[in-house]
């Protein structure tokens, strides 16, 4: 009771503190869902001939921080593809991709003019622009730019910024670019960073992390050749044909924090409504590549599954439309999320008994919740969108398509799939258990995501998070976790939460302080590994057996686990071990000999990197298993020898 009382008092203190520090000016403006403090009005023209963009934008920005802003900071993301020494390309090389971009691959953004309009006064400030590299001091990186202001912008004061820019569209490096007559535009316009109370949060473009920006209204007019189909964030306001053979597509959306679009003459346009009362109706629009025409239903079913399950579990999708872009092959733009629009990812040969198409579609649709609506900082806390979403996606995969989720492997350059009908995929495999196991200790999750080691960061961001969330689900129960996540969604929608906000939501729903757990999974990089060190069961008098069990903590991280001993007569002894000491020994005097012992038999702790050592039996069958699998492997080797032997 005393501990509970202290806990309640602590929670109350935290909540009070949070309420006091919250600023009124970062709350939604009247009649809106979000603060709408960074709104963009953009006109852009695509020139397919030289693969360039020419645009003008007017940003209406309001300072919602607690402090005056003496400068502005912008992202120029496409400059990551401007030279080989950009931070993005340096990190890509560290990650193992040392391919040299071909000469026509480069892309960039140049600001041609910039004007700031404050209360009727216009300042042309183009010469003041200078590149900054706050993350690594890389002077060759030109993805972030700063603009000192003639006079500070006070809290809650608004200014307008007019920018004219030109951009060379890159061939696909990642997420954006063109291939043939397919264009995908992400991070394509000069965009403000986020001004927080501690200053500007404007990171350079990194290879393993994504983006962060404020909410606003986007009103965008895209001019493209007349034969091109356009899909974009928001809803289509109008389509105007010009006399010069182009068409202007006008899109608009409120309360979003980014805007992406795709265009190509090779899209099939399909629409379908998602209807699942009491969830609101959503118009789904699918831009499908012609060679994937037969996969229309699978795309819609997957997007609908996300709308349904995420909607029921976390909160309703707040917009009335959703655009799915089926990306061109080799465009490197698949599997990417933007507000009210995402790119899926399928293959020409996509077996129905494997759900890769569904997984990608659900994952990216799911980002509408964890990224789109809850606007976490993807540069610093990528786990808050990718990891939470990986968990949510895997849960949706299982609920919607678990009956036909079989393991698939691809051969012949990845073009030919083969489905293993006797290996049904478990949810934790979708959550990356195997990949996480290899890199369990590579980085502490609390490290800013852009500082993760490039080649292994994804395993922490995506998989470790998904696995500890799944561990929480098994530990606390889904109703509790669901309550925590829906509460977190409701509280932080259209805002920028911090990790502590998520942890608080979990603790609130669990009714207890979860700090110890998050200290280990989030703030530490230790691995979990529990196992059985010893099992003996020997006669101890007439008709009695003495059984000794030693459970062992092999890893550095701790978690409470059950130790279950099963006896020959079927009886069981279950012990709850807090898992803190290195070992726990249990001795039983029973009428029956022990048969086996298991540590964490229900596999609550999915982060355990070695589950094989979690059990011991006195009737081992390793010999049978090894005989079977070594002979199976032998047949594979014989096949391989014959195939290579064909040459001689």
């Amino acid at each position: 009771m005393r501990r509970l009382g202290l806990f309640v008092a602590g929670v109350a203190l935290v909540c009070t503190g949070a309420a006091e520090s919250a600023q009124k000016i970062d709350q939604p403006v009247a009649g809106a869902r979000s603060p709408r403090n960074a709104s963009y009005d953009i006109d852009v023209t695509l020139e397919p001939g030289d693969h360039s963009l020419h645009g003008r934008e007017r940003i209406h920005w309001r300072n919602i921080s607690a402090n005056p802003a003496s400068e502005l900071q912008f992202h120029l993301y496409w400059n990551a593809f401007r030279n080989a020494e950009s931070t993005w390309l340096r990190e890509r090389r560290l990650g193992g991709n040392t391919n040299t971009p071909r000469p026509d691959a480069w892309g960039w953004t140049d600001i041609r003019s910039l004007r700031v309009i404050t209360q009727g006064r216009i300042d042309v400030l183009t010469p003041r622009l200078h590149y900054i590299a706050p993350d690594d001091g890389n002077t060759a990186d030109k993805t972030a730019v700063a603009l000192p202001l003639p006079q500070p912008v006070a809290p809650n004061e608004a200014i307008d910024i007019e920018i004219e820019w030109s951009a060379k569209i890159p061939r696909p490096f990642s997420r954006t670019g063109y291939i043939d007559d397919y264009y995908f535009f992400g991070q394509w316009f000069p965009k403000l960073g986020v001004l927080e109370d501690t200053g500007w949060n404007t990171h350079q473009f990194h290879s393993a992390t994504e983006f962060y920006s404020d909410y606003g209204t986007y009103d965008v007019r895209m001019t493209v050749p007349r034969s091109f189909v356009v899909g974009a964030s928001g809803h289509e306001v109008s389509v105007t044909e010009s006399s010069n053979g182009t068409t202007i597509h006008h899109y608009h959306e409120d309360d979003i924090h980014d805007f992406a679009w795709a265009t190509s003459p090779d899209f099939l346009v399909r629409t379908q409504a998602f209807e699942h009362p009491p969830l609101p109706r959503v118009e789904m629009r699918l831009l499908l590549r012609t060679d994937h025409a037969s996969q229309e239903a699978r795309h819609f079913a997957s997007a609908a599954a996300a709308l349904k399950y995420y909607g029921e579990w976390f909160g309703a999708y707040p917009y009335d439309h959703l655009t799915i872009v089926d990306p061109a092959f080799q465009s490197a733009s698949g599997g990417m999320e933007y507000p009210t629009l995402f790119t899926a990812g399928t293959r020409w040969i996509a077996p129905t008994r494997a759900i890769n198409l569904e997984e990608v579609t659900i994952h990216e649709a799911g980002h509408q919740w964890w990224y789109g609506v809850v606007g976490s900082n993807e540069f610093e806390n990528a786990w808050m969108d990718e990891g939470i979403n990986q968990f949510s996606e895997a849960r949706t995969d299982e609920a919607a398509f678990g009956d036909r989720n079989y393991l698939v492997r691809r051969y012949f350059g990845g073009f030919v799939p083969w489905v293993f009908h006797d290996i049904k995929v478990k949810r934790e495999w979708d959550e990356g258990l195997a990949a996480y196991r290899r890199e369990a200790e590579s980085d502490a999750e609390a490290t800013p995501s852009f500082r993760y080691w490039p080649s292994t960061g994804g395993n922490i961001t995506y998989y470790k998070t998904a696995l500890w969330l799944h561990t929480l689900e098994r530990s606390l129960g889904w109703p509790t976790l669901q309550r925590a996540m829906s509460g977190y969604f409701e509280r932080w929608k259209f805002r920028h939460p911090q990790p502590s906000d998520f942890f608080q939501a979990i603790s609130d729903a669990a009714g207890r302080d979860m700090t110890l757990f998050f200290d280990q999974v989030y703030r530490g990089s230790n691995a979990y590994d529990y196992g059985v060190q010893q099992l003996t069961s020997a006669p101890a008098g007439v008709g009695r057996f003495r059984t000794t069990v030693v459970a062992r903590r092999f890893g550095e991280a701790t978690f409470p686990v059950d130790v279950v001993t099963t006896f020959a007569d079927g009886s069981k002894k279950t012990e709850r071990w807090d898992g803190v000491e290195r070992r726990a020994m249990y001795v039983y005097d029973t009428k029956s000999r022990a048969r086996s012992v298991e540590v964490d038999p229900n596999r609550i702790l999915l982060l355990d990197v070695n589950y094989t050592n979690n059990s011991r039996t006195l009737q081992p069958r390793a010999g049978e298993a090894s005989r079977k699998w070594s002979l199976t492997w032998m047949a594979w080797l014989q096949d391989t020898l014959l195939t290579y032997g064909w040459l001689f």
Partner: protein
Amino acid sequence: MVFQSWLDGIKRVVVAPAIIASVFVITLLTALPLAAVVGVGINEHLGTSLMANEAADGINYDWWQEFASQGSVLSLNSTFTPSIIGFATTLDSVSSLLDRRPIVPAIAIAAVVYLFAWLFVTGGILDRFARGRRTGAYGFFAASGVFFFRFLRLAVVAVIVYAFLFVYVHQWLFAKWYVSATRDLPFERTVFYWRLLMYGIFAALLALTTIVFDYAKVRAVVEDRRSMIGALVAGARFIIRNPARVAGLYLVNAIVFLGVVGMWALVAPGAGGSGVSMWAGIAASQCYILARLMVKLQFLASETALFQRSLAHWGYTAAPVVVRPVPPIVEFQ
């Protein structure tokens, strides 16, 4: 003549069960030691764990992934993937060959041992097929011994040719031509067709090489050639003079090979359980290996038959002369 040679080849293979058994045993014995190593590794990893139960009764993919992640990518464990199950074995091995995927050192060593074993018996096999009658163990090994070092010299040339094909031609086809032809293609279907074209060209080059070396071996045995360069030239000359027959026969044999592979795709068992179902699965896979070996022998036998028919060598094999051992009965005469 093509069909007659093909039928004749079948007859020559079928009436030589000892040869079929020998090559099967060679394949088995080459694979068995490494399989034993993998088995020991599995046994040690599972130890007394309950995970073994599911692994024995079906597939325990949780354990599987843990086991496969032990050791480096160069270890045998890294080859313990689902590709060892059923028809995936063939997809994996053919794909591995055509995509020039690196193989782990232990497998490469096994492949070299297998190659040497094949080189040794090839002389005896061809001699048996060329004569079309039993040569007995002594005759078989005598021919094998005679031709082993000749074929070893031929294999050196073959290795040089294959090295050229895999290092330069493959690189040119897949890393240059294919990439430059497809890098701007936005439709996977089109890219796949290009990939198929590359596979077709590369497989055709490999097939052409195997044909040339096959006929070189056939001529070396049938005509008792000592110069392997001479045999190569003669083999090539035969192909040039009889392109339709050679290609036709190869095509028929290739269709049979595809038929065997297709049949395997239909009937290949999954992981199976323990006990009888496990042994049934193992037996099925060994039947497939046996069928593949018979097809390989059929290539050699039918090529021998075609050569003998085409050059009026029918029934003729020059040397080495088979010296039959003196029967024990003479001691009583």
